[in-house]
């Protein structure tokens, strides 16, 4: 279990780099991360389903200018790991519990971007004294720090949530409610798509 958790966090950290730091090939979108993480957990189909669900939920969220939106990659990774090889109601719970993580991670991301300015005087001094390798070093350090940030965040979140989730007591009524929820969630996504496209 712990070995698998490390692999998932590692791959999750790499995938999450794509969203701002490296390239933006959109391999950090839930529709891609879901199946990849699901494949690592041995349950690619659940991953695909959860990924499609979170992709639709995030479809209307558009970053404008310098705004930082809630992170969908983290939500999808944590939800997929918790839901893989589990019953459908646990999958619904996994989505519900991991959505707040996207908002927490967004706060963390903003703090990180504010903190990044400590590098500016370092690079400036480097240029003035002719040591240009500092620029390359800082750039790759930035990539590395972003990776460590996502890696640790995913690792800790999965560790905590996989302890919490079994303690959530599901009465038959709640299970029925969660079924309706799983059916209704894509509709919320479609509504947000239509709302952003008819603007």
């Amino acid at each position: 279990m712990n070995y698998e958790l490390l692999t998932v966090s590692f791959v999750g950290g790499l995938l999450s780099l794509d969203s701002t730091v490296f390239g933006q090939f959109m391999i950090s979108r839930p529709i891609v991360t879901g199946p990849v993480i699901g494949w690592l957990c041995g349950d690619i189909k659940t991953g695909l389903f959860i990924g499609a669900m979170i992709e639709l939920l995030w479809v209307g969220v558009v970053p404008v200018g310098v705004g930082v939106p809630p992170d969908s990659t983290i939500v999808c990774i944590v939800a997929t790991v918790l839901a893989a090889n589990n019953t459908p109601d646990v999958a619904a719970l996994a989505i519900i519990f991991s959505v707040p993580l996207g908002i927490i991670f967004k706060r963390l991301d903003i703090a990180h971007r504010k903190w990044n300015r400590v590098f500016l005087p370092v690079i400036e001094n480097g240029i003035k004294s002719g040591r240009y390798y500092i620029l390359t070093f800082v750039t790759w350090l930035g990539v590395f720090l972003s990776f460590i940030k996502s890696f640790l965040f995913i690792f800790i979140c999965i560790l905590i949530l996989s302890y919490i989730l079994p303690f959530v007591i599901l009465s038959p009524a709640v299970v029925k409610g969660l079924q309706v929820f799983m059916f209704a969630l894509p509709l919320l996504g479609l509504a947000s798509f239509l709302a952003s496209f008819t603007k």
Partner: protein
Amino acid sequence: MKNCNIIRTFFRSFLFQAVWNFERMQNVGFLYSIMPCLKEIYGTDENRLKNAAMRHFDFFNTHPYIANAIIAITLILENEKTVDDETKSQQIKSLKLHIGGPIAAIGDTFFWARLRPLCGLLAAGYVFLQCKTLKQVQGFTSCHFLVPLAFIFLYNIPHVFFRFFGFWLGLKCKTDVVKIISNVRLQKISEIIRIIGIFICIFVLVAYIITSAEYRFVGALVFLVSFILLKKNVSVISIFWGLVIGCVGIGFLM
């Protein structure tokens, strides 16, 4: 400039936002990308290289996909040998300041607000039309691997095209590239994508609701209520929490 340095600049531009900061935004990425070429242009003169590096360390922000065009124009301007450093610095400063903003706006509306949602909808809609619950997914055998691959492929054709041709055009046509980019009529393509997106969304919606046996009424209600709330600028996350509470409530009623 040597070809190998230009290729290095292109690949370095993928790390454009590595040290994104709120003070000067993409300045580190910009300088990092053009550094090999700057070294080649000012290689012999330590002082001029320092000055050039410092002036590219200023505030800069644009859309990462279209940044390549600006990088290329900047390099061409830096490479001009007849102009003295003072005018060059002014030219580049005004170019970066005046082109970055409008081009970023074009990129934001086209890529973030139109193309990505459409690709996401196509991929996710395909999954939901095939299967509605996790139980049905387990019986879903047809090419589940192709869904994410198709998404990446569909999205990255325009993306890589823009990165590559923006760079190439910038090197070839210099400042005319802005005219060319505005001539591509991205607004019109965005409008076409918008209309296609609305049709696909309605198709997926109707098919999804009609084929569900039990929850037709609930589904239509959820969609209408959340659409109206979204139009009144309620955030998706708030509606999400409302949906969780509402659905658990429905569970107790049934």
